[in-house]
């Protein structure tokens, strides 16, 4: 219980770096605080800036297991928290052949054996260090947020038949959101907030070279330069870090040693996914179209 996740913000930065995740100061500090204060961490930002990756990196850095709850519309208690294994309960009743009394059967079928734990409950019941990732929490319905409240504030789950299950060891909770919907104040109040944006050119270059080994330094610099310029344009979807990395991989696969204008124009589809964005980029960067 007393073991903390990171001993200091610097420690968080070094260990996340060792796990392959390059942080900036604010990210490292917030990750450290989330561990030290034992509060959930809400990470918000555009798609592809490494929100989910942060949770995975924390798990790798701390040697913890990652429990993931992917949110979607229509997610409910039975798939987020726990469910009774009806089929097994039915089998149990039929197997006893009506010899047991009702109260015995009742006590028997509502036990651990017949409980199917879903991500939230299993994260809470684990004794080993656990990172609980609640991904794309903005995709769920408002009711699920209410469900999360109990889990996030007290780290306990109430099962009517079994009583309240409290966490023996609080998991490191990371919630990610694309901000497609405002989360309720109640959820936000319980979380630390971190906004991940696009990194500056230097950090992005470091990320790309660390993720794509074998990329020439010169090409990496050119690539990041183009991406940074693209983000300044008014685009429907600006290229994210994930797309820069994809682009770097593309260049490796095509064995391109120099990122000239023609190459940029040919491979633009990797980073820009709207036709109008591509046209705008060609116009603004004055690319020669072959």
């Amino acid at each position, binding site marked *: 219980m007393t073991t903390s996740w990171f001993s200091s*913000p610097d420690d968080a930065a070094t260990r996340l770096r060792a796990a392959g995740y390059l942080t900036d*100061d*604010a990210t490292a*500090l*917030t990750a*450290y*605080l989330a561990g*030290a*204060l034992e*509060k959930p961490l*809400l990470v*918000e930002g555009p798609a592809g800036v490494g929100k989910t990756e942060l949770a995975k990196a924390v798990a790798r850095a701390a040697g913890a297991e990652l429990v993931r709850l992917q949110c979607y*519309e229509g997610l409910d208690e039975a798939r987020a928290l726990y469910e009774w294994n009806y089929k097994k309960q039915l089998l149990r009743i039929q197997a006893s052949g009506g010899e047991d009394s009702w109260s015995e059967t009742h006590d028997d079928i509502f036990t651990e054996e017949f409980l199917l734990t879903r991500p939230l409950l299993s994260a809470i019941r684990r004794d080993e260090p656990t990172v609980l990732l609640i991904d794309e929490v903005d995709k769920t*319905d408002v009711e699920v947020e209410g469900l999360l409240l109990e889990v996030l504030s007290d780290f306990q789950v109430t099962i009517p038949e079994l009583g309240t299950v409290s966490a023996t060891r609080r998991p490191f909770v990371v919630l990610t959101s694309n*901000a*497609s*919907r*405002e989360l309720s*104040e109640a959820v*936000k*109040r319980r*979380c*630390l*907030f*971190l*906004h991940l944006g696009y990194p500056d050119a230097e950090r992005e270059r470091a990320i790309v070279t660390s993720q794509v080994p074998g990329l020439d330094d010169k090409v990496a610099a050119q690539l990041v330069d183009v991406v940074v310029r693209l983000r*300044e344009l*008014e685009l*429907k979807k600006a290229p994210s870090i994930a797309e820069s990395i994809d682009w770097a991989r593309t260049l490796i696969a095509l064995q391109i040693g120099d990122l000239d204008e023609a190459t940029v124009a040919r491979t633009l589809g990797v980073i820009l996914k*709207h*036709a*109008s*964005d591509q*046209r*705008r980029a060609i116009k603004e960067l004055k690319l020669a179209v072959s």
Partner: protein
Amino acid sequence: MTLLHTHIGFVEALRSAGLSVSLAEGLDAIGALEKVRWHDRETVRAAYAATLVKRQPQRVTFDAVFDIYFPRLIGSGVAGEDAADDDGVPDTGAQLERFREALAEALASGDQQALQDLAVEAVARFGAMPGRGPGLSSWSAYTSLQRVSPAELMDRLVQGMLSGGLDAEQAQRAAGRRIGDFTRLVEGDARRRIAEEKGPEHVTDVTVRPTIDRLDFTAARRSDLEEMRREIYPLARRLAARLTKEQHAQRRGPLDVRRTVRASIATGGVPLTTHHRPRRPHRTDLVVLCDVSGSVANFAQFTLMLVFALREAFSGVRAFTFVDDVVEVSDTFRPGTDVVEVMESLAASISHAALWGRTNYGRALTRFAEQHADAIGPRSSLLVLGDARSNYSDLALPVLSDLAGRARHAWWLNPEHPRHWGTGDSAADSYGEIVPMGECRNLAQLGEFVHEIV
């Protein structure tokens, strides 16, 4: 002032600046501060930000308030004091010459620390306004920027970068960005000094601007407008997500007996689950009529962009712009067109919409009724955008009431505060009697309204 006072004052200031900081969050902040070391100002900032700011648009406001309550340095700092009075008068021609030389160098090298020091010196040396009465600000970012005029260094900076191997356009952009950064540093430093003299509460009331989605269209600067334009697509996406979710929630229409009975066969004839016919989504045919004269052009453009970004939610959208004549601009918004191009062609259409160049609602409405009478039918909804300032001309009220009567719904969005309606040449009250008029001054209100009509 003790640390606790500063903390409480800071939280209070954030609340009055529009951030909803709860008591629990304030306690979290203190808990977080206990866990970090305070040797670095940025650490304290990040700890506060993680616990108090829960929406990214509020970050700008937070940073401004933080800089006032936790200033970078006091007075001119240690380095500033010995440089200040070498010949009694801080602001001399020779000093200005030397200062601009140093500034040009710092801008060329992009040295952040040097720029920050120079900004402090700029305010100390050229921005002081001694001898003004009590209650008036004694430091002025405006005066120091006028005196130093960093924009004049632009050419030199660009030349330097060109020889450094950048192409002309890149150099221009980089130079502009650095000078803009320096301007912001000077403004920040002037705020800091004023806060030091008058107390931070005074300054936050005056200088902290609202977040971008609560900023008035009419009070927006150019840089704000660009930022707002970037907000349009995310806003449209958020609205679209909310709409699909709401439509799904009320998707259950009347009971589908056939499917229910068929499904009940699997459960031995007991209809355990009922099946329903999907409800047909209702879609509006929207006709937008917008005033694009100088005073409200921005507002009209934002609304049009948002409406067209949500095109799928309507069965059809037609847009007309007017000043004193009417022109149709629906074609500008083809699917997949580029935002910048749309804005350019909209700007070009303004010249067509103006015959004499003075806003005339009466004439515009009459022309619309004559030329595009077919646009309004019993299934379409009419949306008028404008401030209803018609230069005291004829209002053509019967024409509008005829149009509104033919349409299924009619709304009027006014970018002015309701207290200005009906003042001067505003005919908001007269028009408001015919068509329900709503206030729409910022992106948040605009989003709410568009969501409602869909």
